[in-house]
């Protein structure tokens, strides 16, 4: 089992969720984060609006999906497709991390392992 953590633009969450649905992945969760990558931040006003500051941390969303090992690549492909803002991809489109998961448990039934995902 693997956990796939995709950090994407907040406005791309909906497309990502739909892309995953299209490949049969239903279970997932989403967290609001702020993040920094190579993308430069935005300039925002401080105080009374007379000075600005560069905010390097931008709002992002983290979509987490735990899937069977076999599904990892198609999930990554689906996320990339849905998270890119244009066909070539732009800085700030996000990042995906894959990490190991030992076990999953469904609280309602107590099922464990792949069948619990």
């Amino acid at each position, binding site marked *: 089992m693997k956990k796939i953590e995709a950090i994407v633009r907040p406005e791309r969450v909906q497309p990502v969720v739909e892309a995953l649905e299209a490949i049969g992945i239903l279970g997932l969760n989403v967290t609001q984060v702020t993040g920094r990558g190579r993308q430069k931040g935005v300039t925002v*006003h401080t*105080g*009374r*609006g007379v000075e600005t*500051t560069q905010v390097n941390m931008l709002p992002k969303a983290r979509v987490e999906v735990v899937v069977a090992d076999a599904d990892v690549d198609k999930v990554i492909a689906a996320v990339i497709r849905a998270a890119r803002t244009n066909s070539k991809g732009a800085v700030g489109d996000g990042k995906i991390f894959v990490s190991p998961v030992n076990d999953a448990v469904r609280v309602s039934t107590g099922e464990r392992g792949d069948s619990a995902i």
Partner: protein
Amino acid sequence: MPEIDAGATAWVLASSALVLFMTPGLAFFYGGLVRGKNVLSTIMYSFIAMAVVSVVWILWGYSLAFGPGSKFIGNLDFLGFTGVDSGGTFEVAGVSAPIPHALFATFQLMFAIITPALITGAFAERFKFSTYLIFLVLWITFVYAPIAHWVWSGNGWLFGLGALDFAGGTVVHINAGMAAIAAAWLVGRRRNVEHVVVPHNVPFVILGAGILWFGWFGFNAGSALNANASAVNAFLVTNTAAAMAALTWTLLSWWQSKKPSAVGAASGAVAGLVAITPAAGFVGPMGALAIGLGAGSLCYFAVRYRSRLKIDDALDVFAIHGVGGMWGAIATGIFAAAAFGGFDGLINGNGKQVVTQLIGVGATMGYSFIVSFIILKVLDLIPGLGLRVSDKDEDSGLDTALHGEQGYTNN
């Protein structure tokens, strides 16, 4: 003695309510500008002023400010509001109005509430609540009451001199602005803040500005103490100056930092409202446009350059209320026209009025700064008091540290 006029009374009653409402409005204006961990402490500075000042005013504040007294301070004639009748009209030391004396005193109370609340923007995010309560009592007694007496009592020396201050440019705004400087200086800079506090809730800032704009109609047009031509003119010019200054600030922030700031628009409106305050009964709509334009620009740049100073006047009380108030007081001397309020200013050939206004400005600035400074210094030195919270409390935020509450919880 004039009869009580029901129309005048109706309007000043409504105005008193409007001015009281400005203080919660200010609480949101300031509360939105600070960081989320200090939202309640910032709001509380304003809210508790409604409680403390109301009590002080009734017990002795009004009497010190408006009791006939001397040139410099009132007396104890109205201690505990004795003699402050609701049956008879207001007539003290040669000033009168066709409304009950008690209504005049109540209307004035609302000004006394908001003035120290304005100061709190200077020391937000680090001032001790306990010390603040004592500061409120002392400041109303030793700073606000005397200055109000100078300017608005028929016996006051600035009144006698002919200094014009329709609704509080000196008494409220310059006064608050100078005390703010003293307080920000003595309490010291906030920790870990290098000009980069981003307001935690901008809609609250706009809500506050909206309430302030709304309430300011009571502040200025109510100061006519009647529902007459003067009130109407004050109403119109108040709106005009606020609008012009909001527009000016928005355009300046657009020009200088590429994007028109919503907080800037709100700040500009407040700057315009401040500046028109002393002038509201004396200038017409064209004067108000000029005053608004000046307020929007001067306060904008004051905020801009203030942030380069060492003094951490956190929410720019001096740059808005101090500078706006000075500009307004002087502009009253420039743009006053007898057609509106019976007095001519510089543009109508009476340059002397500017001089009189400058005396009023200077006297208020000096007195307010010095006495506020002394009060705060003394409070700082008293063991167990002191102005500033501990570093730990400041870091974790005053809301939980001082008030045991959080602004927002996810529950």
